[in-house]
């Protein structure tokens, strides 16, 4: 029972490089989210998706793109990485209409941009 799986777990990039973070969930959830966590800032929403083929911006979307081509996968892309994108990234999912049940989170991806 995997739940929410994020790959990779760690990554170091140079400024200007691109990469894609993958989130996969096996719970058939409609909603998926990407957050970043920075010291003293809590978790901030980057983008989210309410279903396959749909995406929407969150609080801090600049510099990121996302795609939800399959229901179980939510990809977060950095086209040209900047040091300000050094952070821990969390993916989460939840059932539609199940706000009180909370979200299920992956273990995180630690990204450093040099």
């Amino acid at each position: 029972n995997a739940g929410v799986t994020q790959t990779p777990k760690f990554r170091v990039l140079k400024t200007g490089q691109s990469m894609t973070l993958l989130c996969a969930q096996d719970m058939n959830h409609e909603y998926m989210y990407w957050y970043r966590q920075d010291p003293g800032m809590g978790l901030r929403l980057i983008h989210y998706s309410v279903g396959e083929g749909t995406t929407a911006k969150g609080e801090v979307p600049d510099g990121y793109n996302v795609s939800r081509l399959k229901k179980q996968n939510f990809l977060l892309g950095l086209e040209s990485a900047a040091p300000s994108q050094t952070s821990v990234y969390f993916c989460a999912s939840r059932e539609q209409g199940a706000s009180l049940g909370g979200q299920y989170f992956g273990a995180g991806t630690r990204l450093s941009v040099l």
Partner: protein
Amino acid sequence: DQQVKQNSPSLSVQEGRISILNCDYTNSMFDYFLWYKKYPAEGPTFLISISSIKDKNEDGRFTVFLNKSAKHLSLHIVPSQPGDSAVYFCAASGFRQFYFGTGTSLTVIP
């Protein structure tokens, strides 16, 4: 501007005593409020939630209280156990999005 705030970065409590974690919010349109627990190198895990139409929800040792007039919620853990030592985040839900506080690190001393 942060819509959900946790003003205490850390809290230490003796085992067996009550832990009280606090959270304030600014947006009166939030529908639900949640608490998550996070261990190092892991993602947050859902703990307990409360709808904006309630003022209390209890689940075992955990109780969440909501004071809408003060825009304040709190999490009570009784009795506190060493395994409760973790970072606790409060979150508020509004139109499909969730807004998180900065977290409170709880240490339960055996």
